């Protein structure tokens, strides 16, 4: 889930005026943008890492890993014709995690030196020993070979931090102008850029240097009709991506048209913010007078930007093994996808059309890295095959709990100062094998709704019952889009919903939806994750009307 996302763009930007760090977006210190291009020599990091590992072993640790992280962020915030804020932040420090007396301990410091690293290691061992007195189950790590000195870098074309701020501001203001020209009353836009320079070392003998990049352009358009007092919004159909600034150079081949009559364009590996801002304003305006939906059962045709969030909430989260086992019971919750269902080998999570895969590899995705935050090489694995639940998402200290001897490589920490733990990898619905276009998919629907863009979302703590909205809704009658709808939300049960999956379009329609701020853990941590899918049909889903009246 994305707890931090309910902080809207408006409040995000307003808060940033007063705070050195942007809520929900990194926790660094404000710096001159020029500092965002600097790198630290891995040899220096190796000396500090060794100091931490040696100190941990001397203090009695049976295992230790150290993460020396430099986390760089830049956020540019605008509304209408003006810049609201430009924030460049850096956070640099060391986190040391140890096992002593069979118990985890963690400590972090912003004293980035050999002495600081050693002291953090000693503190971590002290915490592990204090907690081991009340500990019952010993930590057991899946074996992991050391990789020696290796490195990995997100394959970007252009580092967004190298692009002059003036150029980035100009692009956002041009998008705002497009929205205003097309009838928007208000528009907020923002560009987030992230670079994680992460150095990982462990007593297994790995020294892993990684340079990870992410980018997220977005906006929200609002149209206010003063006469009726009504207002409607439409958010951008961009996705946060594991790409450089090249994401903002639109290519025709990356544009995917929605069904005929829908006025929706989806985006693959590049994004046309100007085109989308104009479309958003027109659609927000149309929403004010769109027909209010008649509640009932409809066949839903869901675009990948929308479906990504449904996959995230109803498949990605319930298959996190820590949730299944109860480790998140006090916060995010547990899971309906219990071990007995998995062990049976025949739990029908979805229909035969449903093939869901986890990975940390897909180029352009937010999850893509070479190694995870506990030094495991990343991979791809099946979660659901032809509708049957076949596996979970797990890390080193969880594998033995389900009788496996290998981590899936999906351990992550949002910064050097937070302890790493199991996080959601990319979780994607494989496209259909046979050729099937969006228009062909819609043609077979007698009474349905096409939904594009992700909107309101809520799901229970075991991931049974969910309700989703969207950005734009179109009625489908007798195989054709007939006009826009409003006040649409659908409610379903996860297993029933995925078993109602009738067909998914072919690979030519496949693209990512992504989330920058997936929240989990206590203290809460944020992670970024992508979900690939093609436009997909679900039959007979319960749709409610969300319009109300207040006095």
């Amino acid at each position, binding site marked *: 889930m994305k707890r931090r996302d309910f902080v809207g763009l408006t409040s995000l930007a307003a808060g940033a005026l007063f705070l050195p760090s942007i809520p929900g977006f990194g926790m660094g210190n*404000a710096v001159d943008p020029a500092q965002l291009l600097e790198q630290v020599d891995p040899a220096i990091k190796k000396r500090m890492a060794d100091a931490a590992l040696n100190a941990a072993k001397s203090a009695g640790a049976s295992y230790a890993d150290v993460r020396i992280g430099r986390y760089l962020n830049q956020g540019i915030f605008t509304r209408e014709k003006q810049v609201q804020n430009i924030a460049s932040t850096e956070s640099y420090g060391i986190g040391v995690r140890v096992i002593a007396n069979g118990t985890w301990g963690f400590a972090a410091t912003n004293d980035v030196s050999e002495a600081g690293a050693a002291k953090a290691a000693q*503190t971590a061992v002290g*915490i592990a020993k204090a907690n081991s007195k009340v500990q019952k189950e010993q930590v057991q790590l899946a074996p992991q070979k050391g990789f020696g000195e290796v490195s990995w870098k997100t394959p970007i074309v252009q580092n967004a931090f190298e692009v002059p701020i003036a150029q980035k501001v100009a692009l956002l203001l041009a998008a705002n102008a497009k929205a205003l020209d097309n009838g928007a009353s208000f528009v907020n836009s923002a560009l987030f850029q992230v670079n994680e320079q992460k150095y990982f070392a462990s007593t297994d003998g790995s020294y892993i240097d990684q340079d990870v990049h992410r980018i997220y352009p977005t906006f929200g358009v609002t149209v206010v009709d003063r006469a009726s007092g009504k207002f409607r919004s439409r958010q951008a159909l961009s996705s946060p991506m594991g790409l450089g600034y090249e994401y903002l150079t639109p290519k025709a081949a990356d544009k995917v048209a929605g069904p005929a009559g829908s006025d929706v364009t989806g985006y693959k590996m590049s994004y046309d913010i100007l085109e989308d801002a104009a479309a958003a304003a027109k659609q927000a305006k149309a929403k004010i007078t769109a027909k209010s939906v008649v509640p009932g059962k409809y066949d839903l045709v869901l675009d990948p930007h929308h479906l990504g969030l449904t996959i995230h909430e109803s498949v990605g989260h319930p298959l996190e093994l820590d949730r299944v086992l109860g480790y998140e019971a006090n916060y995010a919750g547990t899971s309906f996808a219990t071990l007995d269902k998995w062990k049976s080998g025949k739990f029908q999570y979805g229909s035969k059309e449903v093939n869901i895969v986890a990975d940390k590899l897909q180029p352009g995705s937010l999850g893509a890295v070479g190694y995870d935050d506990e030094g495991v090489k990343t991979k791809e694995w099946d979660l659901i095959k032809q509708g049957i639940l076949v596996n979970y998402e797990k890390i080193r200290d969880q594998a033995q709990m389900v009788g496996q001897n290998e981590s899936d490589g999906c351990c992550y920490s949002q910064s050097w100062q937070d302890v790493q733990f199991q996080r959601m990898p990319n979780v994607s619905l494989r496209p259909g094998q046979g050729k099937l276009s969006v228009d062909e998919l819609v043609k077979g629907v007698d009474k349905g709704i096409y939904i594009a863009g992700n909107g309101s979302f809520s799901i*229970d703590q075991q991931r*049974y*019952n969910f309700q989703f909205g969207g950005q734009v809704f179109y009625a489908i009658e007798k195989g054709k889009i007939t006009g826009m709808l409003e006040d649409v939300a659908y409610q379903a049960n996860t297993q029933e919903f995925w078993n109602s999956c009738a067909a998914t379009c072919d690979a030519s329609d496949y693209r990512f939806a992504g989330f920058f701020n997936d929240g989990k853990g206590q203290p809460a941590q944020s992670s970024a994750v992508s979900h690939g899918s093609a436009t997909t049909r679900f039959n007979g889903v319960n749709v409610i009307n969300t319009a109300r009246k*207040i006095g």
Partner: protein
Amino acid sequence: MAILSKDEAQTILKKVLGFTTADECEATLNGQIGGNVRSARNTISTAGAVDNVSLAVEARFGKRSGVATCNQFDDATLRRCVQRAEEIAKLAPESPEYVPLLGPQQYLAAPASFAQNTANITPDYRAQQTAASMKLCDTKKLSSAGFLEDSAGFIAKRNNKGLEAYQQVTNLSYSVTVRTPEGTGSGYATADYNDISKFDAARLTQIAADKATGSVAAKAMEPGKYTVILEPAALVANTDASLLGALMNAFDARNADEGRSFLSKKGGGNRKGEKMFDERVTIYSDPSNAEIPDLTFSGDGRPQKKMTWIEKGVVKNLYSSRFWAQKAGIPDIPRPGGWIMEGGTQTTADLIKGTAKGILVTRLWYIRPVDPQTLLFTGLTRDGTFYIENGKIKHPVKNFRFNESPVIMLNNLEAIGKPVRLAGNLVPPLKIRDFTFTSLSDAV
């Protein structure tokens, strides 16, 4: 060095301001020590410690502003931090929403927001409190997951227009979820404190354990409109969005004036002065309240004072940025920290006694906006939902999804109980009629 005294902090801030050549300059020091312990399955899973002081410097040349931060305090570092803020300011575009920094301010006398016993917490204290909670569940053969987090800190501000502020704050928050071994029952309890002398993890765990065992074998009831008793944890939360939290988050004057809030008026303007809620609804904020002592100044240095937001159902005040207050010619009121909903003397148990038919809700969860126009939210009940008949709890019921607006809810008010502290607010349990449940959930 994490908790600096007022003199120590202001000495550093004076030095910082002495280094600037900017037209305006404001410096803020923020320090914190603390730690946390997390447990699940009756065993500790992770634990951590925090210790940091950071300085933020905002420099301004005309309408251009830049911020830089550092966390070391030798003269050279401080000087470099100021220079960086000045360099960033020179590169920044002019802000059309510029307002000058505030001059000297009068703040309320600092309430008891800092407690030494909270600042003295050790890793052993956290482990012992957690152990007491886990032991209770071991004995009862229940499974617990808990989180304890504490901090002690200070904030100090100073600018070259004469503003000066300083306050210390401590906090501990604890929550625990208890589940039956087969996962057929679940309960929750949470509490937070400035002063930990009343904190007892085992006592809270007992409440959660009773809810867990009491919620086994829940019966399904048809979704629809029901009279509900919402316990405080169903109204506010420190971990997630909440119905009353969402209501108070929507009291921004600018959004209302711009036509994109439930407080916007048809044709323009906002609904300040209108009666929008039941006349028994009064919500105010007060940093001096002894039960929720809070900061007496806001992030931008404006004084936090006692302020009424809703009085007898009437919208009394909206908060805004300084820029919007000046532009719109409205009172310049910062957004509050915690807030207080006035109530009566009845406990949740008393409210149950006075209910012929209804549903008791321990907690609402995964609350998300559906329609900002009507402040409609959706979410689910969790960790203890019970059917009430003739003043008594009859049996547990399966969890529901709701679709409801706090505006509608506070018009359908049947009774208000006695406020208790939760997430830094004072919140009473509420009895509400016609609360809208739209579907059932199998989740426990």
